[in-house]
């Protein structure tokens, strides 16, 4: 019976084009808009640079599956591995292994332990993202706004860093602003849960004025929640997400402003960095990176910075196709 599967296995495409550089790009989780956009950018860079880009990742945001996949890529002798880790510490052993076997490791979107990678491609500095979101709240609600934060999981390094920066920036510039729930509400990258948490939080914090949802899944989920509770537009909602999936909410005024960078550009830049590391055009010690259509990007302290965050509003949201 199992023999029936064998011919199928044997007929699978055998991807061992000799000589071509192979780059693996791994998202935190497959099947969400944000990483689909990253994939497009990464593939585009691959075509441009004449390298093979494999994009694959876990079906749930599971660091163990990521780690297993990294090790498979090591076995397949990829030249570079680009990854957005679900946990900075837990992914580190696998990445260190890859480096020990001469594979270049680039993290993007969220960092691992710095020792475990060559470069981190940062979409925007954590400070800039934190500032953009707090500024958005202040601009729309006022300097004494009371808000809560919805996050994906309490173990994602980038999200924790953004929240830290938000708090730091708020204390410095808007001392009368208040975060009602010092521990952020968790939504587990699950839109339905995000909706429910948003609805219930309205009850738990009756004097709530704003919600900041800092993942691309939590933000549309929270928007649905506000609409269901009938307070769309009255409770200010902002956060990080892709413009295409947020477009209806922005147009209806439930989410006046969305903060993000271009995930396509992030994927593009990541592959650029990885390929140039492999081709030894740069090292982790280099000062700058010539990133094709994105121009030259600075490398500071082994971090490549994509740029400043973009703010999407009703006026410009249709200009973006991701």
């Amino acid at each position, binding site marked *: 019976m199992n*023999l029936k599967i064998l011919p199928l296995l044997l007929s699978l495409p055998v991807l061992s084009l000799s000589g071509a550089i192979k780059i693996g790009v791994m998202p935190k989780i497959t099947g969400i808009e944000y990483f689909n956009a990253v994939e497009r950018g990464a593939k585009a860079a691959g075509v441009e640079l004449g390298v093979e880009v494999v994009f694959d990742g876990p079906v749930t945001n599971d660091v163990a599956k990521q780690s297993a996949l990294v090790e*498979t890529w*090591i076995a397949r002798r990829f030249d570079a591995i680009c990854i957005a880790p679900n946990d900075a510490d837990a992914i580190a052993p696998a990445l260190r292994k890859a480096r020990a076997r001469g594979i270049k490791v680039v993290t993007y979107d969220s960092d691992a332990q710095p020792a475990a990678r060559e470069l981190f491609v940062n979409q925007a500095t954590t400070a800039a993202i934190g500032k953009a979101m707090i500024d958005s709240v202040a601009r729309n609600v006022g300097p004494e706004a009371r808000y809560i934060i919805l996050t994906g999981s309490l173990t994602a390094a980038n999200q924790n860093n953004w929240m830290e920066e938000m708090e730091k920036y708020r204390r410095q510039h808007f001392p009368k602003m208040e975060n009602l729930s010092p521990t952020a509400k968790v939504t587990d990258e699950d839109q339905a849960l995000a909706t429910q948490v948003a609805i219930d939080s309205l009850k738990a914090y009756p004097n709530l004025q704003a919600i900041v949802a800092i993942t691309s899944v939590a933000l549309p989920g929270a928007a649905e929640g506000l609409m269901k509770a009938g307070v769309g537009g009255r409770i200010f909602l902002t956060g990080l997400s892709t413009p295409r999936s947020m477009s209806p909410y922005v147009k209806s005024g439930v989410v006046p402003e969305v903060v993000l960078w271009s995930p396509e550009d992030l994927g593009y830049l990541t592959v650029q960095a990885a390929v140039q590391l492999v081709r030894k055009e740069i090292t982790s010690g280099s000062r700058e990176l010539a990133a094709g259509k994105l121009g030259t990007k600075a490398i500071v302290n082994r971090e490549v910075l994509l740029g400043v965050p973009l703010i999407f509003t009703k006026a410009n949201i249709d200009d973006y196709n991701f």
Partner: protein
Amino acid sequence: MKTRAEFFQREAVLALVIIAIGAAFSLSVPGFLDPLSLADRSRHWVETGLVAIPMTFIIASGGIDLSVGSLLALAMMVSGRLHAAGWPLPVVMAGSLLTGWAGGLFNAAMIRALRLPPLVVTLATLALFRGLAYGLSGAQPVGAWPDVFTDWGSIGAWRISGGWEIPWGVLILLGAVAAGTALFHRHALGRRARQLGENPTAARYAGISAMRTELAIYGLAGLACGLGAILWTARFATAHPGAALGLELDVIAVVVIGGTRITGGAGSVPGTFLGLLLLGLLRYGLDVTSVSQQDQNILVGILLVIVAIFNERWALQHRRA
């Protein structure tokens, strides 16, 4: 008529299939047999294998344990808290094992004392243990484990010649398979578990204590979770409350593929180990040939059903003759 010589035939078929798949992949994919990758890859299946061994006892006894993934996470977070509080490593490890064991005993006690179906009890503890893992840790992973410990888990191995190596975790698993095989096929515990699953009434008349047997096998499953938690922590240098989510599904699939009857009464620990090899090899090969995770899941699901039907037909044929 099933004779002794035929007893291992099913296992032999499984082994042949594994060899065939392995050969097919190694011929078509360069680097498939890379010793280092095989060693790396095998580390990922250690926890599944460790838990699958006692699960073979449990399923053979007519029960099931859905809570193993959650219990592993709970044991991990208890030991994580101990570590964060500054306790030495041996105490931390003992904490993990004890927590796992206690969780397993809790399952067995609920099943016997309240006379509830194992499915309901372990569905409840699936939620309960995971909730405790998150709650006790405040959903925070615990990092900063000593290098000795994490190196042992992530790269430590018994190095044979020619670049071949066997990770310590895999050695532990092999030891557990040997011990599990002896316990299941050569010890009263395995015999009692199978008899309980085959005919609980006859077992009672024959003086077999269901309570003692279940305490032992669910307790063993708990211990395996505790041990798995230690290995997981060492491998990822982190104690993570979300660890081993859905582990129960992989474990049950491995046990069923290995030929253990889901309604109880029959099982095989070597079969379970072969089931683990089959699933692990298939996943590895499919990863290496760039079959996406979701397509792999389709194949694994179909494989599971085919093997289960095959097992049932095989058993029927050999029962009737």
